[in-house]
């Protein structure tokens, strides 16, 4: 049985107290707790003070109900269900008696309150287990004391403590007050994986009923006494800014309170990574109701002008750097030409193994292919919005935000209010996919409220939202493979870049499996803003790499799966280089599992594509079957094999995996934002095509590798590889390779 400490160095990160009305409250530090297994003694001493702040707690009421106060925001990744499952299992209580309360954001207390990169469960795993085990230990000790029996004779099951020899039992609720005054054990034992009763089962989303009955829970649903509605007008193109505007007519329209200009970030403000703000100068229209404001918005007459090139200050974790924003009105056509040019020049070398130059020179044959993908908009179904009520003394905000700690400093600076006077309440997010990490909407709403001296709810129209930027960047990658006269693979070269960043991960597969290897990157600056998008960078490079490997396997006369397995075998037995970002055995594990589940060997008549990838600590392999019907690809089945360590909530994990697959299929076929003279051309769902039900796969099977590794992410890793599974299946169906996303030519797009 694993034993864990409840202290870091000599400091405890637990504290216990008796609840006022009876019961037990065990407070703990979420962040210190998350760090325990990852930190060495020396590092522990350096941990920031606030990590020891007791920012989370579990309460065991005298009625036996356990409340978990959880600092992670929810946007569909189901942490509100999976976290209590982990706690309930260690605590040995019926998970239905565990309820989660969403912690609101107060500065200092949750300095790392962030759901992103599929990390929340990974981080919560240790602390929730330790907290559950600690509370259980104290309950057991209290029962032993109460009955005057040895501690090791007391057992716990589903919220009840037993002393079998004397036939005694008592509920957690009844003994909770006595448990609260027990000393905190310095060490506790965690359950063996095999003894889990709740973890690994399937529990329904705790918010399910509220969702299907339409209860208010999103930022956009928020209502407050005297609340006004605000909308913004931002420049119609990147590289443009406001010159002047005339709001005479708009101001005279019914229900309109005011129309004015706002400045969100002062030009000398040193931004952080999540202050991505496309336009700092906006016009806002404020009125009584959404429809009235929408109508008035159309009547504001605005003159825009080209913005000059400029720089802003960025606080890159303590280092001030100047970020340069080029001038000009960019177009997709020019982007493509430029990327192709850059891809021909030498890039920055990120990894080199062996002598790739020589190998390519001596090659008997070279396969070279170039892949590209456009900008993508997040298109969360809930448009950008935020409620703000700012007075001279304090600010209260409510809205969708993934990382409140990254925006609080900016709010404080801009509103001239100390951080302690700003409260950010976290709404359930109507989709995230990376977008909600950026807090520009909070600044905008707060500034509007401050100017209006009134509570306001700011809402973007879909058009405002889709044309605001913070897109997934546009990328291009060229892959080259060299073969000798016996058709053996002897060298591999990837050169990848994008606007404005490169998607390259130089140490990922197949690095480590090929003697001569070269990885190069390049980037082209732009004034189009970008941001994290479901599995950043992986979401392109996986598709390019896995499409190339498919074509390469064919060139080598190998089965696509056997080819990968051979490479992984090499990486396992005799790896090239030391810094390889994957575990070849686990990687091969998912490939073998999907091979088996899709009955790969007996279905060569099907148009099926294979793909595999490792990112966000999770291994994924996929097989996709499709048919072409009426010139359109119809996906029949998708098989996915996943190694994300221990699965907490099986059906919910499958749901996330299915969603990522559907999302990836949609984006591979249709997803793109295009630009003409700086202006995004797709402003709403009539032109920006998203996948719909008739195009979704008929069935999706998600299978998990069973192992005892700590849980890793599920929200992102199934997204990147599906692009290649789609491309490779399309090739089998049509005989044509697809190198450019989106795969369905524009002319075929229907509105």
């Amino acid at each position: 049985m694993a034993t864990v400490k409840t202290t870091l160095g000599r400091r405890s990160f637990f504290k216990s107290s008796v609840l006022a009305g009876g019961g037990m409250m065990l407070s703990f530090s979420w962040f210190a707790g998350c760090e325990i297994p990852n930190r060495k003694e020396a590092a522990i001493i350096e941990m920031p003070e606030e990590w020891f702040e007791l920012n989370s707690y579990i309460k065991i009421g005298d009625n036996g109900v356990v409340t978990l106060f959880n600092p992670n925001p929810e946007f569909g990744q189901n942490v509100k269900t999976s976290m209590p499952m982990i706690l309930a299992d260690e605590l040995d209580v019926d998970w239905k008696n565990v309820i989660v309360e969403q912690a609101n954001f107060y500065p200092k207390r949750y300095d790392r309150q962030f759901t992103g990169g599929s990390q929340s469960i990974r981080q919560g795993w240790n602390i929730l287990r330790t907290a559950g085990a600690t509370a259980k230990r104290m309950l057991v000790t209290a029962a032993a004391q109460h009955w005057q029996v040895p501690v090791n004779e007391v057992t716990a099951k589903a919220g009840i403590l037993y002393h079998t020899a004397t036939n005694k039992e008592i509920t957690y609720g009844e003994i909770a007050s006595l448990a609260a005054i027990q000393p905190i054990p310095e060490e506790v034992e965690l359950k063996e994986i095999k003894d889990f009763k709740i973890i690994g089962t399937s529990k329904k989303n705790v918010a399910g009923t509220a969702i299907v009955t339409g209860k208010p829970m999103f930022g956009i649903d928020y209502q407050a006494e005297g609340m006004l509605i605000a909308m913004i007008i931002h420049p119609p193109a990147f590289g443009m800014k406001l010159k002047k505007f005339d709001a005479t007519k708009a101001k005279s329209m019914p229900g309109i309170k005011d129309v004015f200009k706002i400045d969100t970030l002062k030009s000398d403000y040193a931004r952080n990574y999540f202050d991505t703000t496309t336009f700092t100068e906006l016009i806002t229209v404020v009125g009584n109701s959404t429809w009235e404001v929408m109508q008035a918005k159309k009547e504001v007459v605005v003159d825009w002008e080209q913005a000059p090139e400029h720089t802003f200050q960025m606080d890159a974790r303590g280092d001030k750097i100047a970020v340069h924003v080029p001038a000009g009105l960019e177009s997709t056509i020019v982007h493509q030409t430029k990327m192709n040019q850059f891809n021909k020049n030498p890039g920055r070398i990120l990894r080199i193994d062996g002598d790739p130059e020589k190998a390519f020179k001596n090659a008997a044959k070279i396969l070279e292919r170039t892949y590209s993908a456009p900008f993508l908009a997040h298109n969360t179904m809930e448009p950008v919005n935020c409620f703000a009520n700012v007075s001279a003394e304090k600010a209260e905000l409510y809205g969708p935000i993934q990382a409140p700690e990254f925006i609080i400093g900016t709010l404080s600076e801009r509103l001239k209010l100390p951080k302690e006077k700003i409260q950010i309440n976290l709404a359930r997010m109507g989709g995230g996919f990376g977008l909600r990490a950026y807090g520009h909407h909070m600044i905008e709403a707060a500034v509007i409220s401050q100017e209006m001296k009134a509570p306001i709810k700011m809402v973007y129209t879909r058009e405002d939202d889709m044309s605001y930027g913070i897109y997934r960047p546009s990328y291009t990658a060229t892959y080259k493979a060299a073969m000798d006269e016996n058709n053996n693979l002897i060298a591999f070269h990837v050169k990848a870049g994008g606007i404005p960043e490169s998607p390259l991960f130089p140490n990922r597969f197949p690095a480590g499996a090929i003697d001569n290897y070269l990885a190069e990157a390049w980037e082209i600056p732009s004034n189009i803003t970008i941001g994290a998008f479901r599995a950043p960078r992986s979401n392109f490079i996986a598709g390019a790499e896995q499409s190339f490997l498919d074509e390469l396997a064919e060139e080598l006369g190998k089965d696509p799966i056997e080819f990968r397995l051979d490479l992984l075998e090499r990486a396992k037995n005799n790896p090239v280089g030391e810094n390889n970002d994957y575990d070849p055995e686990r990687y091969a594990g998912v490939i073998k599992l999907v091979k088996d589940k899709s009955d790969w060997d007996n279905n060569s008549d099907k148009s099926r594509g294979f793909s595999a990838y490792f990112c966000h600590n999770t291994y994924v392999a996929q097989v996709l079957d499709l048919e072409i019907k009426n010139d359109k690809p119809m996906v029949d089945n998708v098989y996915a094999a996943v190694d994300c360590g221990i699965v907490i909530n099986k059906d919910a994990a499958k749901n996330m995996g299915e969603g990522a697959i559907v999302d990836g299929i949609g984006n591979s076929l249709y997803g793109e934002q295009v630009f003409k003279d700086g202006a995004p051309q797709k402003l709403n769902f009539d032109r920006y095509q998203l996948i719909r039900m008739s195009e979704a796969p008929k069935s999706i099977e998600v299978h998990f590798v069973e192992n005892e590794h700590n849980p890793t992410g599920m929200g992102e890793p199934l997204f990147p590889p599906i692009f290649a599974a789609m491309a490779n299946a399309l090739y089998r169906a049509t005989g044509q390779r697809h190198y450019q996303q989106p795969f369905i030519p524009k002319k075929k797009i229907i509105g």
Partner: protein
Amino acid sequence: MATYNLKVNGKDQQVDVSPSTPLLWVLRDHLQLVGTKFGCGIAQCGACTIHIEGIAVRSCQLPVSAVGEQKITTIEGLSENGDHPVQKAWIEHDVPQCGYCQAGQIMSATSLLSQNPNPSDIEIDQAMNGNICRCGTYTRIKKAIKTAANSK
């Protein structure tokens, strides 16, 4: 501005708004029925789906002046206790992820089943194609619709 007497979820409601106001905003801003969602405003996403006399309609494109005496049902009025067979099937299949599109999905699905109690896959696709789910829950939605159809 004009006064409209609306029949919403079995109740008479009076609102004072301009005639062009889409029913979506009357529901959300004036009647505090925020279960009906705003997604696109141009009848492309289905988030705003409600029933007019039991038929699924995109409320973002329906001016309040066109509603008249017709009965309006929103997600809040679909069932007394959230126990409509479609709502139950949604829970059974644990359909929602972020949940934002689901009210619209449910309103489209209930309208479909009231007219066609046993829809084929293609009929489900046709009826549901106007409802986007960005989280990609389509396969579950389809399963839930079939479960609800069989439970009647």
